[in-house]
């Protein structure tokens, strides 16, 4: 007997942002995200409370993926941040925190959403135009002739992930490896269409971080027993090994029988038939002088034995993630059929070696022209390894983005405070024609601009989690931090050492003020005196492309959230 239940009416909530539950949830979420930000950010334990895996993290990608958020307003926020992360990997927390702050600060001034939207879009375009212009002094050009800037970029990404549990030497080691791996993926000859190679991360957990290393070519893990009995590899010439790459299962199963029933006469074995087919395939491989057979899935043990007897090395179950780099590296096309073997599908390798790494054993596939490399990544336990892997992938992505647009932004909060000073100054001196174009009063514009700058400064402020005061100077508009319990008669220049990004050290002619305190707008400048510019140490740098996108995503999402007037929920 079926039971018919009346459909529930949809639930409609008007003006969701004015509801207390929404603003409360939003402030909790922004609290979580803010506390994770930066190199001294606090970590979060993510788990299901029932004995599941405990993930300790401070990275936005893991955090947002792990949170189960139900409220639609929060979902809008997390979805757009996650989309940003999937495209750029970096600056996820920046985007999320800025978006939360913008929503909070815009709500306070309580204007019509459309006015706020218009003004904030204008402010955003001011920011982006400035960042992209030559006049921008909070960005530096990345010089590919030296590795210093690139290393700083990688270093900044890794240093801002405290859950990786790296010390200084280890951070330097991993930074160098990530950069080395990235450089291996750049083609030697530049044509019109540059395609970067691939860096495959090979997990070796429970080992020391300093044991990590980079190999050109691919490393495929094999059981120790397989390495125990090696035999001379069949080569075409001294530097060529022919290989075949299969992407279908060679386990001898009868797949794709379709729907319906297959009727087989007694005495006929389908399995034997398939195995015969596999063995004849093996025969052809042997005849074609293939020296290495790699299969994404399982190879039938009988075929393995047959190939082994003919001195062909087999590797199976390499998984789908290895297929693309392998095919790219060897020039072999994945074979998806057991019937037709065309010689054009075969690829070639320069050499094949064995490597042992702790208790793990690998076959090292060395291509003739290497654009693929393997980064053996070690960390002491599973959790720290997972965190380090994400950090390394982010760093690699940052380098890829930087090669497309060779610019970097000053990190450590300096870009945010500098940009806020710039916007304050710009909005103060905005021509009335511009005001007319966006159809708002000068006061309205000032209030929104103030909220905008306040939000930017708020993001910078989140870099410090301990009792300290954030200062900004009135020349460069950079970020400086001091301990909060300073004596009242103390001169600030005695307390500060370096700005957040590390480019400026303290100078006598600088004046400081507390961040977010009232001040008269000024034009932030760059330093004319070279002696104050730090050129020896690592700077803290951020990815230009990712940060610009983050800024845009944050403003657009905040506008969208402010513009929400109804939530309609289907309750069935």
């Amino acid at each position, binding site marked *: 007997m079926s039971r018919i239940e009346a459909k529930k009416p949809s639930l409609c909530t008007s003006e969701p942002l004015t509801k207390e539950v929404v603003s409360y949830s939003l402030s909790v979420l922004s609290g979580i995200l803010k506390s994770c930000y930066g190199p*001294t950010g606090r*970590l*979060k334990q993510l788990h299901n409370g029932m004995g599941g895996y405990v993930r300790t993290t401070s990275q936005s990608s893991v955090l947002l993926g792990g949170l189960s958020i139900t409220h639609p307003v929060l979902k809008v926020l997390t979805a757009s941040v996650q989309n940003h992360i999937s495209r750029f990997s970096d600056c996820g927390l920046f985007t999320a925190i800025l978006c939360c702050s913008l929503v909070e600060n815009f709500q306070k001034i309580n204007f019509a959403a459309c006015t706020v939207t218009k003004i904030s879009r204008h402010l955003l375009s001011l920011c982006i135009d400035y960042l992209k212009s030559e006049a921008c002094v909070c960005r530096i050009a990345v010089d590919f002739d030296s590795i210093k800037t690139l290393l700083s970029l990688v270093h900044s990404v890794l240093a801002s992930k405290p859950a990786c549990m790296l010390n200084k030497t280890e951070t330097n080691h991993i930074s160098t490896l990530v950069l080395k791996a990235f450089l291996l993926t750049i083609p030697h000859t530049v044509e019109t269409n540059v395609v970067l190679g691939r860096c495959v991360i090979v997990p070796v957990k429970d080992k020391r971080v300093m044991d990590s290393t980079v190999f050109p070519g691919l490393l495929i893990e094999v059981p120790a027993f397989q390495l*125990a009995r090696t035999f001379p590899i069949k080569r075409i010439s001294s530097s060529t090994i022919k290989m075949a790459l299969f992407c279908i299962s060679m386990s001898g199963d009868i797949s794709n029988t379709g729907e319906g029933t*297959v009727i087989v006469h007694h005495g006929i074995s389908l399995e034997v038939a398939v195995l015969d087919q596999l063995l004849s395939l093996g025969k052809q491989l042997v005849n074609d002088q293939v020296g290495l057979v790699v299969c994404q899935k*399982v190879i039938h*043990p009988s075929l393995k034995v047959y190939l082994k007897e003919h001195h062909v090395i087999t590797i199976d179950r390499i998984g789908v993630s290895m297929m693309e780099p392998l095919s790219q590296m060897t020039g072999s096309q994945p074979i998806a059929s057991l019937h037709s073997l065309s010689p054009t599908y075969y690829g070639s390798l320069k050499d094949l070696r064995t490597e042992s790494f702790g208790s793990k054993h690998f076959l090292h596939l060395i291509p003739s022209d290497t654009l693929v490399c393997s980064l053996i990544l070690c960390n002491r336990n*599973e959790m720290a390894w997972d965190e380090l892997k994400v950090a390394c992938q982010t760093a690699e992505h940052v380098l890829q983005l930087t090669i497309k647009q060779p610019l970097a932004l000053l990190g450590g909060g300096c870009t945010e405070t500098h940009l806020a000073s710039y916007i304050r100054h710009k909005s103060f001196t905005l021509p009335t024609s511009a005001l007319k174009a966006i159809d708002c009063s000068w006061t309205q514009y000032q209030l929104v601009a103030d909220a905008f700058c306040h939000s930017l400064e708020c993001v910078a402020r989140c870099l410090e989690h301990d009792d300290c005061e954030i200062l900004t100077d009135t020349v460069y508009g950079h970020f400086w931090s001091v301990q909060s319990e300073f004596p009242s008669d103390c001169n600030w220049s005695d307390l500060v050492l*370096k700005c957040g990004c590390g480019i400026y050290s303290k100078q006598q002619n600088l004046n400081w003020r507390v961040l977010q305190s009232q001040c008269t707008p000024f034009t932030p400048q760059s330093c004319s005196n070279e002696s104050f510019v730090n050129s020896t140490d690592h700077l803290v740098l951020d990815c230009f492309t990712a940060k610009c996108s983050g800024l845009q995503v944050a403003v657009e999402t905040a506008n969208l959230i402010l513009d929400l007037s109804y939530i309609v929920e289907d309750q069935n």
Partner: protein
Amino acid sequence: MAFRNVNRKRHIGLQQLSSLASIGRTLLGPTKLYKFIIDVSTCESVLACSAVRLLESLDLTSAVGQLLNDTIQAQNKEYKTGMTTLLFLVGAWSSAVLECLQQNIPLPVIVSVMSEGLNSCSEKVHCLQLSVHDLYKGPTSVPIYFSSSSQGPQIIENKASIGSNHFRNPLVHVCEEVPVFKEEGVPEVPHSHQVSWWDPHNRCLNSYLCTTDYRIPTSVESADNKTMPAVPGSRLIASSINKRTRLTHSRYFNTLEEKHSLHEDDNFGGPPNRSAACPSKCNDFGHLAVALSHGNQSSMKLVQDIVRCQQQVADHTGTFQFNIAEVVTCCLPGLSETDSCVCPGYVTLVSSEKATVIRQLQDHQLQILLVDGDLTEKYRHLGFNGPSNVQIISENVDLQKSSSGSLWLNCVLDILIQSKVNLILVKGNVCEILMERCILNNILIINPVSLNVLHAFGEVTGVQLVTYLSQVNSHCVGRGVWLDFWRTGDLSKIELDNKVLISIKAEGIHLVTVVLGSTVSSKMQVTEDQFWACAYRLHHALTDQKVFPGGGAVELWCLSHLQKLEEQSLKQADKNPSGEFDMSSPLLSTSLTQYKPVVLKALANGWHQYLSRVMFNTANYASEFEASISIKHHLKKIADCGCPSAYILREFNKGDKAMADCDFSNEHEAVKICDNVTPKVEAWRRALDLVLLVLQTDAEIITGPKRNQLLNSPGSSEFVFL
């Protein structure tokens, strides 16, 4: 989603960590106290005597508990030793960090100073390392490297800071001082091999290898000799029996009859892998093994026997390594502990129904088949997916009578009989009927057998493993395998639970089985764990090629080193605000100088607690307080002496009981205790990493269905629900 804030001042996570770790206090040191863990609901209980087993058996539902367990398991997986140290230090350091928090020290300062402090210790403690080669030579010959060359602490630091790789190899030093090894006075004993060779330093060394090459006849030996009938030609068995009886009388491996001379071989630093590279033929691990036994001499004796066993095989094949991957254990609860022994080959329990077949096969050379899968009709290799929609039809009614099952059985039996196989080792399950039919045909099937055993037999007989019996051809059938009942010293066969013990051997097999007995069956696990701990300690010592002086010497050195850092930082506070601790955040450099001495002291406190607990547990001290006073006394002497490493090595050589040394040795020979290098330093790092990880965590986010449960729980006020 539920979200809980962890209070900063009274960090809940650290409190949990410190209280969890405190349960492992009595497991520290060589004299451990057993713990009973009782499940109240089922009344089941477990006996635990190591940090791993303890945490495994506890119901750790909290996130911090799980992290602790994961950390311990990771250490266990990689090193199999150092877990108790890790557990204790987690507790000690988390309470030290809690104290720092009480004093309002900024969190990044704690994190940075503690990790840099530990870093400095683990980098510079390498000056205490002893080369394992020195320990081969016995207790009198461990040199004090710095006694002649040390001019003061600065010089040592400079040396050590170059990095351990550049550190002077102590071995060379030894060779210069002790040029001839015959000094040791090796008694002339009947020996079968006399090997001499030239070492890299152009010195001829004699080696007296005591491979007891007795030819044991097939018949039973006289009872007082406690040997047993052996398979003809199997020297390995004979020597192992001989050794076993000898061990009941001897304290150490290198008793008079088997004093092995040794030689140095510069051939170390090879690729570290599962098998620790031993200097070839250098087989007297006596003193090293005793030093690493940590109060577990009976287990260590077994490990020494394994080394001996593998050495004997290597004498035939040429290359010798202590290969821990080729060691398996066979646990026999109920058997006396004195019956524990080491046997070459594979020893296992089989059901007594097979006894008749075994009796038939025991005096013959057997043909062996190794199956890497199940022996059932339905079994298919991994990755094979049979189609579900195939229907088999038959036009002939007669054919259907004989079911496919019996068809398969007959086919399989035909293959086995035709290939004249007597013995099959199977990794997985075996069809019951096949097993019975094979017994009728005098074929013995043993299952389940682990993969490394299969490969060991595969290697020695030169055959390949098969997955299906249809693959069997002449390449798959191995020869030269012998089978026998396994007997204890008094020749009795062992029957446990209707099962008999058998041993399978092959000429030249590297595999060694350790038969472990324990009269108290609940102690079986403990006995096995202790054996593996000893085996891995020796393995790591040989892999590293160096050891630390044990008994707290390293920790004492770290304490003195931290003290020095503390004094330096106090001096530096006025001059140079950042010093060697460079901070990522410029702000912190000011508070860094202010708090650095306090945090370093907290770090040292952890080790101090550890050391006094070890000393207290070894029962040389009446209380931890008394032990602590003794440590302070030593520290003062070190400070006066000026060169910590020289002082510590001197004390170590004296075998000073005032250090945490403990008295296992007999009266005349003070036995040194040694610790592993890499596992120990790694355990420190993992412990501190965990504490700092929990310290930096400020919130717990619980996702999934647990949310509703929490919502209704009394503690729901602690949580924020989104």
